């Protein structure tokens, strides 16, 4: 398995280089940040200031040279200059990564747990009222645009706060700027209060699709010969479900979850904007709207690494879930 992992990682390197170069070309040609700087300040900056800005962001260099300097700089931990003054892109990226990971991880864990729970239940109770209810809500959540659902949830959160006379649910940011009583417990509840709404927003869409996959996969496994044999041999229903059926049914879900990481990160862009979480989603929006080449590249590079890494982990998990799979 080690050799397989190393091989996969080595294959990822040229993929990363090729994809970053293509994206670099696209981003560099997306607009002119120097011209933007020249008209974005009042009074308009002097010609010396505009020239200094162009030199600072390397806009005076040929594209190939800029890419080479960037990629070699990244290997040394330097992500290049931003159009934002004094912004260390590397520090910004990893600070925001922590924020997004908190949100995405919480959302994924909740979505996964609920999806398995409701998917299995739905399969076991096929065509029952509960199955129809779960199916209905699954399709409802699937059909709802994230931005719209997030706005509704914010309204619901405010209503909740008004009913309880509290400000437990936060609608902007990861935490309050200050606490009247600054205790560890209050800090914890403040964090939780700010996490609830964006997490639900991000989790429910994934939950909806993953429930459907789990249900379908579970139904297929439950109808298979080896499950019937296990039951015929007298194994208890619970043991058959958990040890034999569920384990096999999780294999396709693992693939789907790994592939959905990119979609969830995309959903985080919208969710972070609406809930004003200063994570990678907001970083991408800012970088694109200000034509910040190196900041956009940093985001794409990290996202690509995450997607490639998680797909690799998913492949490795197959071997854990299915003993027949071995990597040489």
């Amino acid at each position, binding site marked *: 398995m080690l050799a397989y992992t190393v091989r996969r990682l080595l294959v990822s390197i040229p993929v990363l280089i090729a994809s970053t170069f293509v994206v670099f070309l696209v981003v560099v040609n*997306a*607009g*002119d*940040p120097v*011209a*933007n700087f020249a*008209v*974005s*300040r*009042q*009074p*308009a*900056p*002097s010609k010396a*200031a505009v020239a*200094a*800005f162009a*030199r*600072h962001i390397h806009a005076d260099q040929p594209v190939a040279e800029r890419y080479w300097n960037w990629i070699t700089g990244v290997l040394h931990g330097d992500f290049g200059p931003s159009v*934002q*003054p*004094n912004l260390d892109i590397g520090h910004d990226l990893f*600070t925001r990564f922590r924020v997004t990971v908190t949100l995405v991880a919480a959302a994924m864990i909740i979505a996964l747990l609920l999806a398995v729970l409701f998917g299995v239940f739905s399969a076991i109770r096929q065509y029952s009222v509960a199955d129809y209810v779960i199916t209905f809500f699954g399709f409802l959540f699937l059909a709802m645009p994230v931005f719209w659902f997030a*706005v*509704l*949830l914010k*309204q*619901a959160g*405010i*209503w*909740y706060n*008004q*009913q*309880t*006379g*509290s*400000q*437990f649910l*936060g*609608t*902007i*940011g990861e935490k*309050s*700027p*200050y*606490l*009247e*009583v600054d205790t560890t*417990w*209050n*800090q914890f*509840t*403040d964090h939780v*209060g700010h996490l609830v709404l964006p997490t639900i927003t991000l989790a429910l869409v994934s939950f909806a699709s993953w429930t459907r996959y789990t249900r379908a996969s579970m139904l297929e496994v439950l109808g298979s010969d080896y499950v019937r044999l296990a039951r015929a041999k007298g194994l208890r229903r619970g043991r058959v479900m958990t040890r034999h059926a569920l384990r096999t049914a999780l294999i396709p879900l693992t693939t789907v979850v790994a592939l959905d990481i990119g979609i969830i990160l995309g959903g985080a862009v919208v969710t972070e904007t*609406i*809930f*004003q979480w200063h994570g990678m989603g907001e970083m991408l929006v800012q970088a*694109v*709207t200000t*034509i910040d080449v190196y900041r956009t590249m940093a985001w794409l590079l990290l996202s690509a690494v995450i997607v490639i890494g998680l797909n690799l982990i998913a492949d490795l998990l197959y071997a854990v879930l299915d003993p027949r799979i071995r990597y040489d």
Partner: protein
Amino acid sequence: MRAHSSALTRGLALAAGLTLALAACNSNGGGGGGSHKPSSSGLSSCSTQGKANTCNAGATKAGGSFTYTLEKNIQQWLVQDSNGNTFENGEAISVVLPQVYVPQPDFSVQLNTDLVTSATQTSTSPQTIVYKINPKASWNDGTPINADDFIYYWRTNNGKDCPPPPASDSTQTKGCLPQSTAGYDRIKSVTGSDGGKTVTVVLNKPFADWKQLFGAGYPLYPAHVAEKLSGAKVGDAAHMTGTQMTQGWQYFGKTPPSKYATAGPYKLQDWTDNDHATFVPDPKWWGAHKPSLQRLIFKVITDATQEPTALRNNEVQGIYPQPEVDLVNQIKAIPNVTYTIGAGLTWEHFDLNLHNPALGKYLPLRKAIFTAISIKDIMSKTVGQFDPNVKPLGNHNYMPVQSSYQDVVTGTGQGSGDVAKAKQYLTDAKFTGVGTALKTPDGKAVGPFNCRYTTGNQIRQSECQILQSALASLGIKVTIKPIGAADLGTVLTGHQYDIIVFAWVGSPFPGANAQQNWVTGGGGNYGGYSNKEVDKLVNEAVGELDPTKAASLLNQADALMAKDAYVLPLYQKPTFLAVQTRWVNMRDNATNVGPPYNIAEWGLKK
């Protein structure tokens, strides 16, 4: 802001009943049940003539935490720097640093007597300004504010003593890049007397906008801090080297003002990058108004559409977004919130690109285009939907609230929507195909022109559509072409438009803006306008020390420019301030300092 642990328990039962349907119903209801009449008594009088500087006034009581929104992060703390010259930085830095003249809501400037007891022009030849520094004025580390701070300011901003970084500097950090050298480059000397508490400024060339110096949104930074960190002699800014000044310049750009001595009613206690700034009253503040708030927060909310919900959820107590119909309606539905829609310093306009052969060559064509446009029609279909007080703007330099304002546009018939008159201009100039397919007198087709606006801006899209319809009646085809969110600069500097609609920010000191935007070759003269008489008048105005004469010269130039039909002013972009009614003394200030211009007075209503 506060996390109540008991609320968690109480809320579990309610959470069970929380459904999307309820949320949806709630979103229409305005929140919290019951009917809520819009409450705008506090700020509602701000738009009344003469009330801009005094509305929403009231006595305050001690305590309270007020959270105000910033729409951008602060990356650069030196607002004098061309990179740090952002509205948000101007708002935040004016809380902790002093300036001589402070821009007011009515676009006038007021002497900051906490800093200087007087600022007097004692001679016109050579122009000499004498500032008497308040004897009590000092930085909060105990160092008196004195002439050295003024000398340091002048030398770092004059473009000579601390020159821009050389091309060989790959980091572009070895030099000073002031946002403007205007005025400072005309100063011959800055000297101190009376133990440094009197500052005498002598200028080489007259500078009409001398009240702009050492303030107007660009405050003083502590010279002694720069001197200490750069190894210069403390109190001797006059002899600092360029390298030493550069060190100070870079330090103030990178360092939040919590790390060095400040001199404001509040001091910056904490800056969390990209999230918020926390200010607390500075016990060393000597000024007339002692701050009453316990805490002041500037919270970064980069998406304006999220501000109403934050206000409704009491996560912020005051917001200052760009108004739109939906946003204003949302605020109206929030109980106990007062709001005002003001006429800002930013003004919307149509520009013609004179690099286009037909537009550049034929004045009658330009006049016809501007005459066919109905500004009233534009306003009623855009900003008039939420701002009934909006009026057409008739000047390119002054706003109606300013005493020097003269309407130089209406008399020309431009913006009237008079299609018959517009056709007459074309017919008289021997254009053919008027009303069908317009051709120049030498038989070339006119257009099709593009009308460009920033993508996603619904108001500007509508403005282009109205223009398209108006010009169709003259026989000119117009295609509407949006500009990418970050491409406005590329389009303007690359002259990639025929007609464009965007906005400029006016100033309490319009001379410098006029020089940039209207004079031949000026930095903001994107359309390539050139009129030697206008150049002469504007340049004279900038050097005229009599404010009345200077304004007259600018208005003469403006009248000429209006006749040349280069830029058609539409209206002042509305501004929007909304604050909870339990707070007082917050007012709309559309200048570069924003509503925090009087931050010491903000507080809980008594």
